[in-house]
């Protein structure tokens, strides 16, 4: 295996990681499942391509710098998600999930039918701007942003919404606003991932952003562990690399992929990380919780035996 090949897999994992981190905020921390995030990736990919592709290519772009494509693609996905959220965030649980599924497919079908962006034939000639370094920097920024958000009052409010919506409202939390913030940020993440994806593949086509892609993102989030940033990072790395590792199985590859995912989910039902973080403070918290549980059990037992002696 040569470095170019490994680097290619890592870049793809890094791109997936951006989208997965965003979805992790929505699903893992706010408790809203989405099956439409490939749609936001598509918006990012197409808007990004439009901004950076050369005016001479067909379809024609604007020929602007890559950084503007990232900003524009992320912003476009965020704006669209805001309007989708306005309509659908009042839906409860599974109904919201079904609505996102519909929106995701609708976005794909719109791109399928807009000839300005190449329609179903796709858009060749997107500049190859997604360098290894650029993806690495984007991933680091994405992780830091998310980690800081989750450990603030805004992030805690989202977690409260996930835990118990009614109690969150009674605790003075604007549930709708928390959900909206979470949705828009996760869509911006997906949009940025889409931009990097387009500039990595240099060719985009609506069918790349089908329901399968949305499902893949959700699987990675659950696989890594809901409510864990380290889980999402690990999940994106493992599940993007896994199909490549399994290439030896040729046509049985995806069967083994599915079997491997099932095996891990059965042995670790809460995902790889199970809501824990692989950071010094995360580990401290984990040990503190375990000690507290052990202590509480000991206290209760002592009280119980005390009562018997009486």
């Amino acid at each position, binding site marked *: 295996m040569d470095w170019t090949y490994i680097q290619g897999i890592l870049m793809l994992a890094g791109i997936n990681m951006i989208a997965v981190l965003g979805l992790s905020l929505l699903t893992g921390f706010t408790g809203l499942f989405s099956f439409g995030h490939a749609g936001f990736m598509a918006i990012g990919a197409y808007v990004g391509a439009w901004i950076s592709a050369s005016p001479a290519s067909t379809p024609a772009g604007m020929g602007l710098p890559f950084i503007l494509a990232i900003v524009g693609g992320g912003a476009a996905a965020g704006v669209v998600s805001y309007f989708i959220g306005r309509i659908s965030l009042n839906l409860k649980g599974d109904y919201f999930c079904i609505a996102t599924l519909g929106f995701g497919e609708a976005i794909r079908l719109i791109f399928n039918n807009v000839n300005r962006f190449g329609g179903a034939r796709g858009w060749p000639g997107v500049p190859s701007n997604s360098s290894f370094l650029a993806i690495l920097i984007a991933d680091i920024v994405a992780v830091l942003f998310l980690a800081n958000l989750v450990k*603030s009052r805004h992030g805690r409010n989202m977690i409260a919404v996930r835990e118990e919506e009614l109690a969150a*409202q009674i605790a003075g939390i604007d549930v709708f606003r928390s959900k909206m913030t979470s949705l828009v940020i996760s869509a911006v993440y997906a949009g940025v991932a889409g931009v990097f994806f387009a500039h990595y593949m240099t060719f985009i086509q609506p069918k790349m952003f089908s329901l399968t892609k949305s499902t893949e993102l959700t699987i990675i989030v659950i696989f890594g562990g809901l409510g864990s940033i380290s889980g999402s990072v690990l999940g994106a790395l493992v599940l993007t690399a896994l199909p490549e590792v399994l290439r030896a199985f040729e046509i049985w590859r995806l069967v083994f992929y599915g079997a491997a995912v099932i095996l891990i989910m059965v042995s670790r039902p809460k995902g790889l990380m199970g809501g824990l973080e692989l950071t010094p403070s995360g580990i401290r918290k984990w040990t503190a919780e375990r000690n507290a549980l052990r202590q509480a059990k000991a206290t209760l037992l002592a009280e119980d035996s005390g009562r018997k002696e009486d």
Partner: protein
Amino acid sequence: MAAILHIRDLTKQFGGLTAVDAVSFSVPEGGIVGLIGPNGAGKTTIFNLITGIYRPTSGSIEYRGKSIVGLEPFRIADMGITRTFQNIRLFKNLSVFDNVLTACHLSANYSFAEAILRLPRFRAQEKHLTAKAEELLGIMNLSDYRDLIANNLPYGLQRRLEIVRALALNPKLLLLDEPAAGMNPDETEQLMRLIVRIRDDFGLSVLVIEHHMDLIMGVCEHIVVLNFGEKIAEGSADEISKNAQVIEAYLGTSEEAVDA
């Protein structure tokens, strides 16, 4: 004494069922008022109406002289009314400390950008929130359980944690929905003292729903009795325990009375 909460002709209908029928009463500033009645009398519905979870069909709810009808629950919480639930609703998978810390959020106002960039105002206010949560846990004797996941707490302590979480909002009016449910006499006794203590220490007014008559008679200065959605009596513990209608609602009519 001025009333902190004033309810007038409050009515709530669910289709053809009138759950609350033209009920009026008030909670005086700093008072502890009990709301009692048989199952299905509409007590919890009144709590849901006050906290904005339901909208009243008619009638008014005034908090410190301002109508709060039609406001969203989080706005009402923001104004200083909060509650506990009959079936405990904690943030189950979070630690005891995080439950309280989350509820302290109204005491901070740093912006989103300040949080992401970890600016000084964020740091200062987070420090303040942490200290406040620690202090509340200390006052309520929950410090030993600080790191325990809320779901693993013994039942009685879960109830207490819910009250601490409510206090973290700096409420002016606290609504307690059957706080003694499932507690033994010992724990109920403790809870009674706790209710009086938080009223005094935090300068609160309390409205409490309860079935434990010891608790109601012991701590409530004023009692409102509901039956089938209607207010049937109101008064001090003494007056209520002698009221014929109340006795009838709780114990039923004697056969002689029916025959007569």
